């Protein structure tokens, strides 16, 4: 592995047992939340992950940070396989890799003051005494745009947006090298989103931070990501330099996803070129045979139902899992795959 790789995921799988028994002689049914995902996070770069609700983004994030165990597959952090680490090594790894959560409300302990919440990682790691950690906490609060005088307050006294800043401050407490951010700005209004995105980008270039950035807002991902992976029903369907993926999506799902982005101006209402996908994502317990997108895809043929298209580089250089990818110009950048 080359040294410019911060983190690599190799064929990660996470299945959740449902408890309901399979038919006689068949294995129990399980939710195939992440079902064979490989990607590379380049050092100092941001990999955006986008995809439909329920496609496995949060599960992937939690597997990658070892908050939950993968069913199979490997995670390499700085070239070292961390899939099996435990004890002190695991604590050390946790220090290097921090997560910012999707839901700022449930990720903050309501009985702890903001100061205690932000200092928690420092305490757990036994890094700082009370006095120094208070200083560090105030510094972190300032960094994320919170009033440091409020360190004695409790989460319920803050608005949704302010709570997300608390989560971000906590994740930065240990100076991690890799940040996995699961919808970190979704609950923030735009002027604050812009500040947080600027902040994350500044931290990234100052500290050489590498970041996995999950968001459903495609324009946010476009702004912050160097590479982007598009997930559908537990799999990556397309991955590549953000510029290319946005300019000329190769997978039909990517194309549909991009055309669902809200307009920027009311005068564009009812404009042309909208692809409205029918239906919802099929159940990850029983994904469709062959290509998992075929039940919503306007290009699907019998081949798509019979043979699963592998994620591979096309002649154009674009990395996509589709039997009939959209026409794209020849790729300029090297793919992150």
């Amino acid at each position, binding site marked *: 592995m080359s040294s410019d790789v911060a983190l690599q995921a190799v064929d990660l799988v996470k299945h959740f047992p449902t408890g309901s028994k399979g038919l006689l002689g068949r294995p129990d049914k399980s939710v195939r939340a992440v079902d064979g995902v490989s990607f590379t996070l380049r050092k100092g770069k941001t990999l955006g992950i986008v995809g439909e609700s*329920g496609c496995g983004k949060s599960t992937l994030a939690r597997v990658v940070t070892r908050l939950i165990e993968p069913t199979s597959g490997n995670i390499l952090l700085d070239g070292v396989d961390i899939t099996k680490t435990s004890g002190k090594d695991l604590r050390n790894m946790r220090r290097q890799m921090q997560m910012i959560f999707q839901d700022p409300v449930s990720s903050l302990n309501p009985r702890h003051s903001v100061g205690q919440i932000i200092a928690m990682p420092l305490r757990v790691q036994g890094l700082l005494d009370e006095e120094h950690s208070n200083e560090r906490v105030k510094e972190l609060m300032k960094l994320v745009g919170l*009033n440091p005088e409020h360190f004695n307050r409790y989460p319920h006294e803050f608005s949704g947006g302010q709570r997300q800043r608390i989560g971000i401050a906590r994740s930065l407490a240990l100076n991690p090298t890799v940040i996995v951010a699961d919808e970190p700005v979704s609950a923030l209004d735009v002027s604050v989103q812009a500040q947080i995105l600027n902040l994350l980008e500044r931290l990234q270039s100052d500290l050489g931070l590498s970041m996995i950035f999950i968001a459903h807002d495609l324009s946010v991902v476009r702004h912050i990501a160097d590479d982007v992976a598009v997930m559908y029903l537990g799999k990556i369907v397309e991955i590549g330099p953000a510029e290319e993926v946005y300019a000329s999506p190769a997978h039909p799902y990517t194309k549909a996803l991009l055309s669902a982005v809200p307009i920027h101006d009311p005068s564009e209402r009812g404009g042309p070129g909208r692809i409205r996908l029918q239906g919802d994502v099929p159940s990850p317990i029983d994904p469709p045979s062959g290509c998992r997108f075929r039940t919503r895809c306007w290009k699907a043929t019998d081949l798509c139902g019979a043979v699963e298209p592998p994620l591979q580089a096309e002649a154009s250089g674009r990395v996509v899992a589709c039997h009939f990818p959209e026409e794209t110009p020849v790729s300029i950048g090297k793919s992150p795959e």
Partner: protein
Amino acid sequence: MSNTAAPVLSVQNLRVSFDTQDGTVRAVDDISFDVYAGETICIVGESGSGKSVMAGSIMRLNNSSTATTEGKILVNGIDVLTASEEEVRGIRGSEVAMIFQDPMSALNPYFTIGKQIAEAYVVHHPGASKREVHDVVLAMMIKVGIPSPEKRIDEYPHQFSGGMRQRIVIAIALVNNPKILIADEPTTALDVTVQAQILDLMMSLQKEFGMTIILITHDLGVVAEVAQDVIVMYAGHIVEQSHVDALFHSPTHPYSWGLLGSVASYGANKRGDLYTISGSPPSLISLPAGCAFHPRCVHSKGSGNACMTVQPKLRDVGTDGSRSACHLTDDVLISIGRGSDRS
């Protein structure tokens, strides 16, 4: 906005404050507006500007012992704030229904979704037969686009994806055919194809049921898609209320200019810093004197001392129905507003 019919909702001089150990938080500070039948009104504004507290007041949800609420909220001629518990229960669900950003918090993890939709219905239809309730629940699930509803009616919330859960929450909210639906960031936790579906769903149900929608969102793209009127809030105040086209093409408040500028600069590809409004929102315990926005406003020198000393009142600006709470003259607001037109 001029309108001859009576409003379905009239909020008059609403103030909501919370006592905390550090002092009194003035979350909503003298807000008035009217909403008319069938309208879609969007509420945008800084995080912490009081949108959720304001929306909660309409359902009388801010009844913690630390909350103080003043003013009037008239729904169907009844003042929600002074009505009896029984009257409020009658209003909740059947006159005004509310959905939230996090569908999980609105759903009980221990009951099937069928039971939860049924319960909402039975509250306002106590005499309904089992059969009727079952039919209503199934019909509602079909309306909100849950595939194979007969199968899923007996499933639990955790067995649904985020988008599906929000559909269920919408089904619960609409099962009693409310006149007003308040949606507090209903699509914020969802990705775009599902967001597009949920918005389409809300808009088509609005047509079908003829209800009024009050949509709280921080996504100006969503505003551009669905709003007729837009209310912009800052630090517990309404700073601008305008028709959606006016807001996007000739906004009339410095905060609106900053807000629209932040989005505009999302631009095409990865590039430098995004435009932001400098500084951060004020403490609601000690609001700045005068205009609450003045410490962050680059135009606050334009009106002598007024911005620092006198709180600007919401007033009509120009002729397209826009209202703005800013001391700058109409001419200045209109010309800078047009200049910041992003199209």
